[in-house]
């Protein structure tokens, strides 16, 4: 029998959970069950099915695609506990959050912190509704790991900037509506000469060329800017503050990328794959003791990594800032994702190296592409070597040659 000691909070939690369940029951299309946020979402509305569109709009209207963002800008306004419940209930129903991309992961949080009121009003709501796709204008041919060396110039022309230059590795540039870019507004100072600018991708003078990668896909682009006019109101923060704002955005990126290595999280366990593709003893153990050992070795470290990711979240929550292990997380998570992909194709043998054809299952073919694509994870978002520099210098206080 229930006692009278149940606190009020308990009731509101239950009420919220019930609300979420009802919402999912009313809005989540059955045909999407068990499917994740597919590439269609990232590639834009043209490839969205009606069911995907309906689900995105339903979640977007509620603000639940960006559950903890402020309600006044179209977010869900939920607290962390409620956001966790939302996630639990989505998972329970085989549903997913249809609203993602760089607007959600990186640009939105940064604009909420540094943007003007007008900029927030303009840009945040469409991100929350999943209507606008953003791409990142950071890397250049000669400014990758040495990002502050960027040369794309934004010249002050009174009421607008005139932008000239080239960006590269623009993920999703061919599908993006807008670009958040760091550009040079002053050649005399490497860091203080950088500003944070928002550029419409359909502006005259913007040209995007996809780059075909070793995985056969083209998620990255080269983006060229030739006399592109950008209104002054598209400057975020002060002129010359771009390096500070840009770095803040990279912290959001790093946190999001740590677990993002393909094959690193979902799907069948390595042991299950090994049982399917290899020999199994009568007692259900793997016949190859070396492989069994390698899988256990990986799974132990992976478990420990997940504990570490959770700890980073708890720490930053408690301290109210970014955890000092965020660079370590990016480095560890991406490396382990690659390791898992390597182990997976090794377990499958040549059956796991298919490029095309009916004699390979979709999972096998995707596995090959994911393995190749995954090589990018330790390069983008600050390469492993750059994360090592960040850890050594910023966290450990190891200095340059004097």
């Amino acid at each position, binding site marked *: 029998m229930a006692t009278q000691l149940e606190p009020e909070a308990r009731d509101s939690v239950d009420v919220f959970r019930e609300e979420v369940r009802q919402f999912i029951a009313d809005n989540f299309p059955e045909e999407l069950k068990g499917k994740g946020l597919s590439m269609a979402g990232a590639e834009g509305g043209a490839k969205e099915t009606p069911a995907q569109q309906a689900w995105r709009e339903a979640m977007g209207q509620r603000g639940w695609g960006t559950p903890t963002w402020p309600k006044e800008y179209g977010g869900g306004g939920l607290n962390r506990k409620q956001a966790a419940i939302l996630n639990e209930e989505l998972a329970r129903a085989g549903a997913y959050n249809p609203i993602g991309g760089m607007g959600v992961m990186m640009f939105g949080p940064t604009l909420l912190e540094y943007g003007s009121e007008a900029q927030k009003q303009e840009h945040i709501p469409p991100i929350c509704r999943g209507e606008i796709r953003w791409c990142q204008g950071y890397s250049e041919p000669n400014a990758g790991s040495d990002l502050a060396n960027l040369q794309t110039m934004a010249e002050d022309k009174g009421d607008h900037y005139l932008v000239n230059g080239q960006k590269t590795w623009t993920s999703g540039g061919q599908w993006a509506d807008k670009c958040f870019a760091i550009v040079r507004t002053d050649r005399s100072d490497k860091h203080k000469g950088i500003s944070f600018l928002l550029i419409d991708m359909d502006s005259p003078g913007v040209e995007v060329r996809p780059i075909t990668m070793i995985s056969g896909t083209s998620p990255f682009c080269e983006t060229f800017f030739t006399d592109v006019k950008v209104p002054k109101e598209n400057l975020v923060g002060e002129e010359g503050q771009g390096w500070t704002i840009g770095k803040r955005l990279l912290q959001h990126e790093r946190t999001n990328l740590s677990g993002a290595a393909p094959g690193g999280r979902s799907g069948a366990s390595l042991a299950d794959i090994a049982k399917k593709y290899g020999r199994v003893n009568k007692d*259900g153990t793997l016949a190859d003791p070396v492989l069994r050992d390698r899988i256990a070795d990986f799974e132990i470290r992976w478990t420990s990594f997940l504990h570490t990711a959770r700890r980073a979240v708890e720490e930053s929550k408690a301290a109210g800032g970014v955890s000092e292990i965020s660079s370590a997380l990016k480095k560890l998570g991406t490396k382990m994702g690659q390791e898992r992909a390597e182990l997976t194709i090794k377990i499958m043998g040549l059956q796991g190296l298919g490029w095309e054809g009916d004699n390979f299952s979709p999972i096998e073919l995707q596995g090959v592409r994911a393995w190749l694509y995954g090589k990018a994870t330790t390069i983008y978002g600050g390469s492993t070597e750059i994360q090592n520099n960040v850890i050594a210098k910023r966290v450990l206080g*190891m200095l340059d040659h004097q």
Partner: protein
Amino acid sequence: MAVLNEEQEMLRDMAREWATNESPVTEFRKVRASGEPEAFDRAAYATMAEMGWAGIIIPEEHGGSDFGFLSAGLVVEELGKTLTASPLIATTLAASAIMLGGSEEQKSKWLPKLASGEAIATLAIDEGPHHDPDTLEASVSGSKLTGTKAFVAEAHGADLFVVAAKDGLYLVEKGDGVTLTTRRLTDQRSHADIAFDGAAADKLANGGDDLLDKVLDRARVLTAAEMLGMAQIVFDTTLAYLKQRVQFNQVLSSFQALQHRMADLFADLAQMRSAVEAGLQAIDSGAGVSRAAIVAKAEANRVMHTMSNEGIQLHGGIGMTDEYDIGFYLKRARVLEAAWGTRSFLKNRFATLGGY
């Protein structure tokens, strides 16, 4: 670092202050120099017990504070940092065995004494140089235990042994039928082979068939907590050394080759800490303990192994000297890596638990 409550922060700060001021590595050097097989300072252990550390996991009704394993781990980590030689871990583990499997009578008899420091206890499980709890020969007949236990840690100071026999765990008091042979190991702590020859044995009968496994889970995690403190100090010491040592007219810490190795160690240490804290928290919550304990000890083994080797290498020649402390951490590390399961043993167990 796990997010701690106020009580835990106080406990950790107290342990840190005491270890730093009252039990620095010079105290371990004194214990080593004395050559006593017991290999710990009784007065220091009495102080530790007075501060309540021997009773951290023991319920209040039996004289403890019932703070749980995360709290015990905090203290053990601080003591690991200064290589404090004491039977604290051994006694805590023996107490946990009694708590898990003892009758009310056994608990009332032993737990208050262990909590107060009046009695010292340890686990006597393995019978050879490798951790192998599945093939034990020691047996009990008519409440008399016969068999041999090998490399028992903290054996010389112990008043009570929690002994694994074929059919369960038994309490055996020091005395008739219990003979110790010292086995000095590289860490210069107390280890002994014990011959039990018809020693009076009192069974821990309430813990179920998996009582030994449960106790070993706790042993793995608490040992990993000691290793965490050791790894942290080797890392901190090495970093400080690289920042002050000049070669080629530059401080070593400015060389990128060394910076990246330290970044690797930093990331490894972060993983080790998470794994150990998750293990401690799992014991306190009671969920997924075996798996968490394997991960904690396996990660502690992996990281401490690398850390202790790199610590020596990055120190160069001075790291090889007995005068410098870092070698003690290497030697203790290998003994603890072997305790309660090497990484190979633990991987095998992890795979078995995972059904592959």
